[in-house]
């Protein structure tokens, strides 16, 4: 982000009149510095032989140690059939008056060499009365060791996993992993739809052709083929014989005297048929300004993953996605990885992102072929504090979009005070006027998973 342009923007805003608090906020973001860009890959070699620090004594077992057999865990996709059963069971639990026990959508990252991927598993916890070992966290953790070294000597290092750099937390995804994400996302969407009873999409009646075919025995072919069409063949033979004068009396036809040419045989053959299905185009907009540092980004992106998954399921994988990041300017990024992992920095201008979406839709004439969804995640800060630039763009967007969902992950520090975006969106009356098209969900930045899903329901419910 060229700083010069930011300064220009600030000057313009100032001319339009700013309260001291707003100016302070803008200054804070400007001065925070930092730059966007993907985080550096994690170090793979954390130092000689210290990885086992903290590894549980009881995690060693004969099958692995002696025979090299890995601990087996069936993957979620292998379990997907029993998943239905599990979710059904979970619903029954609620009926019986017990809390639900199955968690899904947990995104874990196995592997340490940057080849991390999104894995979706149904998980549960067997709750018991247990000693809380983590409560001793005020003490330093200690573990066993052997070998040389004086007391106090540092013998190795571990990367601090618990506190990843801002914006990098979560399901970062390595190269070649995108396919995996898709199929997993489909499963997750299914689970979300079924478990959380997220609404199913209505058929919008906007059917557009896809380059997808089903094959059917519809075309006819003479001479050879898969299945003989008796009626058509007979008609053909009759015609030929009439021409040949082989039928003296039309009222008394003797089929045994027919001359049958190979050309007369009509067959049905397999042929590709165009299929029609609704398809979706989803714009994900993420505010990656400096103020988004920390949990708000994690929250927004986690929610976007889930929305993406849900749409993936709803549209039977026929979902196209566009990812847009914005600070004071917006840019489109090619993939989810970049979208997810780009670091936060810079100021905030929500209208830039909305403008870009409108431009893309217009330029590519997308409104004709797609159901368009726009999801925007922000912390609610906007230099354009009265929405004078954002709102017109939003209005334009609502003219074609099937749904615009705005997620605001409010910072703890603005507990009582409503954020700019929140203020001007609700002030505009659009939420009521276009209640079917525009939704807004405001949550605290420390919201948990159920709250996130609740938010999704709010954003996408009919």
């Amino acid at each position, binding site marked *: 982000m060229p700083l010069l342009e930011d300064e220009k923007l600030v000057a313009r805003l100032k001319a339009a009149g700013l309260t001291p608090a707003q100016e302070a906020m803008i200054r804070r973001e400007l001065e925070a510095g930092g730059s966007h860009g993907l985080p550096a890959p994690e170090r793979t070699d954390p130092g000689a032989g*210290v990885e086992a620090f903290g590894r549980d004594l009881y995690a060693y077992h004969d099958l692995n140690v002696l025979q090299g057999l890995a601990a087996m865990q069936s993957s979620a996709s292998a379990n997907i059939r029993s998943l239905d059963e599990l979710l059904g069971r979970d619903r029954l639990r609620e009926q019986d008056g017990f809390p639900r026990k199955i968690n899904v959508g947990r995104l874990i990252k196995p592997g340490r060499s940057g080849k991390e991927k999104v894995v979706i598993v149904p*998980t549960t916890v067997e709750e018991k009365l247990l000693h809380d070992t983590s409560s001793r966290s005020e003490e330093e953790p200690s573990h066993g060791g052997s070998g040389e070294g004086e007391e106090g000597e540092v013998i190795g290092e571990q990367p*601090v996993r618990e506190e990843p750099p801002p914006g990098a937390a979560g399901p970062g995804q390595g190269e070649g992993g995108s396919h995996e994400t898709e199929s997993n996302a489909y499963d997750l969407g299914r689970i979300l739809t079924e478990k959380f009873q997220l609404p199913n999409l209505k058929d919008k009646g906007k059917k557009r052709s896809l380059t997808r075919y089903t094959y059917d025995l519809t075309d006819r072919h003479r001479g050879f083929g898969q299945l003989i069409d008796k009626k058509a063949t007979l008609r053909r033979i009759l015609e030929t014989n009439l021409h040949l004068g082989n039928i003296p009396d039309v009222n008394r036809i003797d089929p045994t005297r027919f001359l049958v040419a190979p050309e007369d045989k009509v067959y049905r053959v397999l042929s590709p048929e165009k299929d029609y299905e609704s398809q979706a185009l989803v714009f994900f907009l993420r505010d990656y300004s400096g103020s988004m540092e920390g949990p708000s980004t994690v929250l927004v992106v986690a929610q976007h993953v889930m929305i993406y998954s849900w749409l993936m399921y709803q549209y039977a994988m026929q979902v196209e996605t566009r990812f847009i990041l914005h600070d004071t300017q917006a840019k489109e990024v090619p993939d989810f990885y970049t979208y997810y992992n780009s670091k936060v920095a810079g100021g905030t201008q929500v209208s830039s992102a909305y403008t870009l979406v409108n431009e893309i839709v217009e330029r590519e004439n997308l409104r004709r072929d797609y159901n368009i969804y726009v999801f925007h995640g922000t912390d609610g800060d906007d230099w354009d504090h009265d929405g004078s630039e954002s709102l017109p763009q939003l209005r334009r967007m609502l003219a074609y979009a099937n749904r615009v969902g705005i997620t605001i992950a409010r910072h703890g520090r603005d507990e009582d005070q409503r954020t700019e975006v929140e203020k001007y969106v609700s002030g505009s009356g659009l939420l009521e006027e276009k209640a079917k098209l525009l939704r807004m969900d405001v949550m605290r930045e420390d919201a948990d998973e159920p709250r996130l899903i609740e938010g999704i329901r709010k954003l996408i419910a009919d």
Partner: protein
Amino acid sequence: MELISQHTKKIMEGCKDRAAAAGLRFEKETLEYIVTNRDLLELTPKLMIPTLYDYWVHDVEVLKEKGRYELYPSNPYETVINTRPAISYYNDNNPDWLNVMIFYHVLAHIDFFQNNLCFRHTWDYDFTGQALSDKRMIAQLRSENGRWVDYVIEFARGIDNLVGYHSELSRLSRPLESARARMLDYYFDHFLQNVRKVPTGTYIKEIERYNACLRQSSEHGEQAFFAEVFRKHPEFDSLYKKSLEAKAERRQDLMQFILEHSEFLAREKNRWMKPVVEVVRKTSLFFQPQIRTKIMNEGWASYWHEALFLQDDRISGHEVDFARVHAGVTAMPRVGLNPYALGMRLFHHIEELAGKGKYSIEFRRLTDRRERERYDRPHGDGRDFLFKVRENLNDFLFINTFVEQDFADRFRLFVAGRRLNQARGVWEIYVKSRSVDDYRAMLLGLLYHPPAIDIDREKTGNGSLYLVHRFEGRPLVREFIANTLLGIEFLWGRPVQLETSEAVRAEPAGPPSGLPGMHMPLSEERREKELKWQRVRYTMQDRKLTRDVL
């Protein structure tokens, strides 16, 4: 799952002969199966017991990062299980020499299962057989009661880490005493002193009378003595019987207590739940010793696979292969704790010291360092001593007794610490302490230790169950309390209360000293460390949890 080939079985039989000759004691019959990945998928959730009852949580990936091993007393990936006959699992394509090594390892495990007293309660039956009949029973109940069976299993499993494993052992390992002797103890220790509150003179007279009776007739003396007691105190008999019952009850764990006293479970329509709870309890009891002897068990098995493999004449030519695998299993990690490595070294160390007679009182009396070093008076074979250790100890006793400074120095053991280097943004692993006391404390701190939850019988009086967590410096995992208590309430049928300790972030003690009007910032560290504990009580009533501070 299929049995190993005849060829491999023959190797196993050869191993058995050699192991038995070396002094290991185990039942002759064993079963060895080849397992594929597919088998493992089915076996691991069932803790390698092929006949364990079905339960839906087995189909779900249970969150296992935190507290995995606190939750379960069993390791789901063992090669050998403690059944009759013992069953062990093998990879399809192990070469023969590797199988020899694994067989020795397995045989040592079996020897450990069948001789270590912590496993005493598993000796008299075959767990797989019992599990199979339990599984069928649960399947039958499930066809009648549907998902409610799973709720009962779930709630029973919620408290299955609180089973009275030690009282079970103590019941089995109690020295045989006659009923008469127990009655005698009760008469003199309790009845005369606490019930009748007789003066000392009378007490002594009774002792004299007892002795006189014995002198008259050593066989019928006691009988004559008690005939007089019954005549004098007609209430004695019933009081004595009551005391026996009370004593048995005091030893009940939470599950037993619920089984016996829950009105809910006693109802006709709920009676089927009892055997389900019983199954969960038995299963838990079966696995309890496993996790409490992890270091010993693996150490013992590693010790023997090394000793026996090297003597085995059938595998010559594979010494290097063996060395490579063996070192992989038992190398001391630079940082981390490997139970195989640690246990094996400790057994070696003990054997050496015992061989020199260094576990004798005589040696302990020596104070001169050089004399201690030179001391070498064999009091028998070091290995005999090892067998005694194998028979009588568990991990806690093993570590607490034998991890000494000599041992730590010999293998250069230290406590590794981890601290944050903020400048570089990494955790630094460093040598925290080389003192054996710290090392031992660190080890003991890592051992499995479920919380002690007692039943307060007096407060339980009016229908609600009152549980008391005996606080040992660690609080309970708070987010688990609600659902666990919910389960207990279900089984108990009435409200449940739990008293435990929780941390309060205390205000820093004393006003900060400083000049008036001057701000004295407290150091961040100090604020963190001031933890105070307070007793709190959770009440679960009608599936609602409330908490109050006592």
